[in-house]
């Protein structure tokens, strides 16, 4: 995850049977469990040729599902980035009663099943729920609609940035910030020049996790979607629906897009990490120019 990992010397495996067995075991299980299913998604999607594949993706309902999923991610990521950093900052730099409780509450979506979040959301915002009457009176449609999908996706992905950033901020403590402030830096400057560079890696990691998770969310959105075709179907719901509609090729075509977006996210993250690692090593003189 950061520069220190790549600097440690690694032990060779040649001439060590047990190490070889371990490595082979790792590679084989990774192939079986990850590479093969990944390959099959693209194989089944493209089996009937490019034109069929493109035809499936040009379907207006599928295009809408891709758009809706990206919209949900594009709301969830910035909201949870700002929230996660702010919350982690507050909890790590200041002391106040109830800190533990707040931490646990923010991390709650990680440990309860998304479907419970969906059902709970329905109980609060559904017409038969707590605010049902009020919502009807004000003509707010917070269930079975686009806002419900976006909101639920945001709730489910709340913990990711927070969880990545918090331990780092805690281990760093407030000393560097205090130093910056004592030298005359303002709040914003301290944040941008001291805090942000310190948590950069954790932040990038958290953001990419949030993004990936919001694309892939299924359980909670399935509850609040109402499955209106071309309106409240996200990519995961569209895959499920196409599969049930006897359109395996269509389902795999959408799955291939979802997988591609996830792969690109991962590649971008790895590339940024590598570049930074390289820059750091060069700065230390470990790697020649």
């Amino acid at each position, binding site marked *: 995850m950061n520069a220190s990992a790549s600097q440690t010397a690694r032990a060779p495996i040649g001439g060590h049977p047990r190490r070889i067995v371990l490595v082979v075991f790792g590679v084989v299980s990774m192939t079986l469990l990850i590479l093969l299913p990944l390959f099959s998604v693209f194989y089944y999607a493209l089996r009937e040729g490019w034109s069929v594949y493109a035809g499936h993706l040009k379907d207006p309902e599928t295009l809408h599902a891709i758009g809706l999923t990206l919209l949900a991610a594009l709301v969830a990521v910035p909201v949870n980035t700002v929230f996660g950093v702010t919350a982690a900052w507050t909890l790590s730099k200041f002391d106040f009663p109830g800190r533990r409780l707040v931490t646990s509450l923010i991390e709650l979506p990680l440990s309860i099943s998304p479907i419970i979040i969906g059902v709970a959301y329905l109980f609060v915002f559904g017409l038969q729920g707590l605010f*049902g009457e009020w919502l009807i009176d004000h003509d707010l449609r917070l269930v*079975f609609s686009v806002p419900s999908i976006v909101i639920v996706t945001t709730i489910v992905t709340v913990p990711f940035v927070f969880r990545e950033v918090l331990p780092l901020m805690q281990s760093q403590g407030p000393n560097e910030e205090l130093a910056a402030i004592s030298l005359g830096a303002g709040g914003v400057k301290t944040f941008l020049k001291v805090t942000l560079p310190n948590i950069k890696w954790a932040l990038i990691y958290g953001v990419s996790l949030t993004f990936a998770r919001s694309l892939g969310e299924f359980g909670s959105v399935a509850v609040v979607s109402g499955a209106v075709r071309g309106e409240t179907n996200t990519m995961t719901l569209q895959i499920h629906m196409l599969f049930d509609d006897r359109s395996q090729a269509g389902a795999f075509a959408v799955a291939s897009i979802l997988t591609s977006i996830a792969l690109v996210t991962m590649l971008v993250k790895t590339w940024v990490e590598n570049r930074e690692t390289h820059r750091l090593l060069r700065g230390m003189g470990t790697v020649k120019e």
Partner: protein
Amino acid sequence: MKRFFVPGLLALLGLAAPAASQAGQEILNASYDISRELFADVNKAFVPYWKQKTSGDVTVKQSHAGSSKQARAVLEGLRADVVTFNTAGDVQLLAASRFVARDWATRFPFNSSPYYSVHSILVRKGNPKGIKDWSDLAKPGVSIVQVNPKTGGNGRYAVLAYYAAGLESSGGDAAKARALLKSILANVAVFESGGRAATSTFTEREISDVLVTFEAETLAYATSPNGNYEVITPSVSILSEFPVAVVDKVARKKETETLARAYLDYLYTPEAQEIIARHYYRPRNEEVAARHASRLASIKALEVGPVFGGWEKATRDFFDNGALVDALLKEIASEVR
């Protein structure tokens, strides 16, 4: 913060979802699980029909899930203008909460059911277990997939079909009908939550020997090009109605009442009846029915009303918690042990 957040978010979504703000009206049809293909075709034909009739543009959106689940979703706020379900009980639920008019059943012809179907049996090619009628489903070693009677009308019809077959063959002996129902239920390997899920379990996952579902589904699968299945039409079956209703509470608010009504009226036109028949449902229009008579074998179809004293009584006797189905499943479970 929430006060600013929610409207702000809605505004953002309004910008991002241009499809919703197109000129012309839009209605949502909340329907049961396996009607996806049917209503995709009906809606395609309704758009030009409406345009010709009123020169207005219309978009019909679809939502599909188990019929009872859809009824719940409408109660929770799914903004469906019309519902097209597969049992009267699910519409009744909406009528009880005043989403649908109390006299909904008389608002359209034929009990507000523009088409009907019967329950039938799908087996694997060659019929390896030699299934000919409902009583064969009770044989040891036959395994069945059907919809859970608690979650879908499809499953309730299946249970009533078994029982009705028992009554027919024994000359009305309730004890014999109960015994047949019990031995068939003992052979059910999977109770699925929705009609299409049951079909997928049978066809894709290749679980069990028999799928019991609407004839519209079994015929569609048996006649599809790569279908390795055969339909067994039983000697007697239960007639399934597909009641439709305007969800007044929603339509009034969205000002789509006229359109919603016209959409349901359209289902009774010869044009729509033809589409319905092509999807293997039995049309009400006699001319259309005659045209498709060769594909839809004639069958003795018993109605829930006369045989079971109506849906309310059938629900009380068979499907409520602790009623016959629960009692039989409990007996079966205790005998296995």
